[in-house]
């Protein structure tokens, strides 16, 4: 009886040990898997795809600093996987210089706030002007636009400029230089004039004939109205103020 109990005890001990070892092995595997999943999740949460556009303010080594379209400074890293494209055939990190305009798509690291560029494209960004027409010069087909920051822009409206009038019903109707009036609100997409630094050339222009001038623009009505209606008595005799 004692022998039987001893054998039974030993068998139980062996199986318990084996089972314990197996459990330990499975636990270790689960822990490893958990760690790997957690690491991958953290990695995915930390990095996301992003695209930015802006003007180069500095370059050094494999780092490009740009000022994005909203005026924020962004730091971009490039590596051997980064692809460069431009209208010029050969374009790489060494060709990028200050004032260049770039479109960059890559991986944004939320922790370091840097972008690891995957695609760098050389682009041409326009200047967006939102303001009121303060002057029209029919001789050279140019308008002066005053914005909320009291800044004036001299803009040439050319035959290639796509002009639209925003009608009261919400439709955009094709327009032209002759339809633009002083004190109208305008939205202009412009590019620098290659021959004159002080002038811009409009690529797109939108004017809003049914809306009064922006009250936030310190617009002084010293401009001579384009069409002055002189009151008449009806008999053809013009009335002039005393």
């Amino acid at each position, binding site marked *: 009886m004692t022998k039987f109990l001893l054998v039974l005890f030993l068998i139980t001990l062996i199986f318990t040990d084996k089972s314990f070892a197996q459990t330990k092995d499975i636990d270790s595997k689960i822990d490893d898997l958990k760690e790997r999943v957690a690491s991958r999740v953290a990695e995915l949460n930390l990095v996301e795809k992003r695209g*930015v556009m802006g003007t180069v303010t500095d370059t050094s080594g494999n780092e490009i600093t740009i000022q994005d379209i909203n005026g924020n400074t962004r730091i971009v890293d490039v590596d051997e996987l980064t692809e460069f494209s431009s209208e010029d055939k050969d374009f790489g990190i060494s060709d990028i210089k200050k004032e260049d305009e770039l479109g960059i798509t890559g991986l944004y690291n939320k922790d370091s706030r840097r972008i690891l560029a995957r695609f760098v494209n050389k682009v041409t960004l326009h200047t967006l002007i939102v303001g009121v027409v303060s002057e029209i010069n029919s001789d050279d087909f140019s308008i002066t636009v005053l914005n909320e920051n009291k800044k004036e822009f001299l803009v040439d409206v050319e035959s290639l400029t796509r002009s639209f009038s925003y009608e009261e019903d*919400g439709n955009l109707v094709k327009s032209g230089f002759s339809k633009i009036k002083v004190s109208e609100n305008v939205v202009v997409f412009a590019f620098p004039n290659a021959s004159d630094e002080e002038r811009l050339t409009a690529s797109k222009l939108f004017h809003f004939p049914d809306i009064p001038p922006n*009250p936030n623009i310190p617009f002084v009505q010293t401009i001579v109205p384009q069409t002055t209606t002189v009151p008449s008595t009806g008999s053809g005799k013009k009335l002039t103020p005393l």
Partner: protein
Amino acid sequence: MKREKIILAFIASAIGLLVAGGAFFIYQKGKEIKSNQIKNFVSVTPTPKSQSLFLSIEKPRNEEVLSSKTVQINGKTRKEAKLLIITPDAEETATPAEDGSFSTTVTLQEGENLVEFIAISPNGETVVERRTVSVSTEDF
């Protein structure tokens, strides 16, 4: 004598349990809210109190990279405002609904796109929002 003590203890325990149960029942009943006291709470998106013009674009997010060229635009402004949405290839107008929300679809180019939103109120106030929205089917 001992038996009587046990019976008395049992009866006392039973009475104690009954009293405690009754008290608990009354307490729970007091917490019950009648159906006519229940109010419906509706989550309302806050609208700026100021009458000045505002423009918020919910979709697409700035710097978002999308896999499709067709992009849904959702946003909110004052209901009287006029909206202009300009993409590299198109110029769109949108009319806000009664609650000021608006929605439209635009088509973008492959690569980085500059999308500009301009809202203009009937008094001439203007708000501009500029976003970079990229389209890429590349896996990186």
